């Protein structure tokens, strides 16, 4: 069973606030990913990391930033939230050499 956690599960926040979405996995996976998913739509990769101190931007441009200081932790930060950031954010991880990505439950963000 996959052990990848995201907090908070739901967040409603006002415009201009700084927020951090947490993602942690206890599987020792070196590769981690952040996807953005609008309701009823496909997932788009916004950030990924191949290991500690490695972060890259994904296919979809995003105003968010990420960090990877520890293997198990891959937080995503929005410095100033806007209504256009309203979406679901899904975190995933994968072990090098294996093809399956394991997904967290997601954070549903609403910016008023």
């Amino acid at each position, binding site marked *: 069973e996959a052990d*990848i956690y*995201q907090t908070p*599960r739901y967040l409603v926040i006002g415009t201009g606030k700084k927020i951090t979405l947490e993602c942690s996995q206890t599987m020792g996976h070196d*590769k981690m990913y952040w996807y953005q998913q609008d309701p*009823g*739509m*496909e*997932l*788009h*990769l916004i950030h*990924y990391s191949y290991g500690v101190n490695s972060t890259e931007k*994904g*296919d979809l441009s995003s105003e968010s930033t990420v960090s990877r200081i520890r293997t198990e932790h891959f937080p995503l930060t929005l410095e100033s939230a806007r209504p256009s950031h309203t979406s679901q954010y*899904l975190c*995933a991880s*994968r072990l090098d050499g294996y*093809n*399956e*990505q*394991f*997904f*967290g*439950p*997601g954070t*549903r963000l609403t910016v008023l």
Partner: protein
Amino acid sequence: AQSVTQLDSQVPVFEEAPVELRCNYSSSVSVYLFWYVQYPNQGLQLLLKYLSGSTLVKGINGFEAEFNKSQTSFHLRKPSVHISDTAEYFCAVTPANAGNMLTFGGGTRLMVKP
């Protein structure tokens, strides 16, 4: 670059009926293919995957999919659906031997009616 097209955004079906969810992909290189399921307010769960070998792949919950290279398709099937199969299903592709960046289709909402 790869792309994935899920031809049906919604598929309504009665309980115990068979179902097929269609997926076509485009790629200039060999690919690995995946089907994920997403239940309401949850993350994605892997149903099955094709990496190589037999083109008929069996997954969890009674689902199976067939890889057809000539038609660049990877359709998902189940012979008899249950109410609990109601969910969003995503087809995804990644280049074989090249970093495992998943490209997702737009999703198909399977609605099983009693």
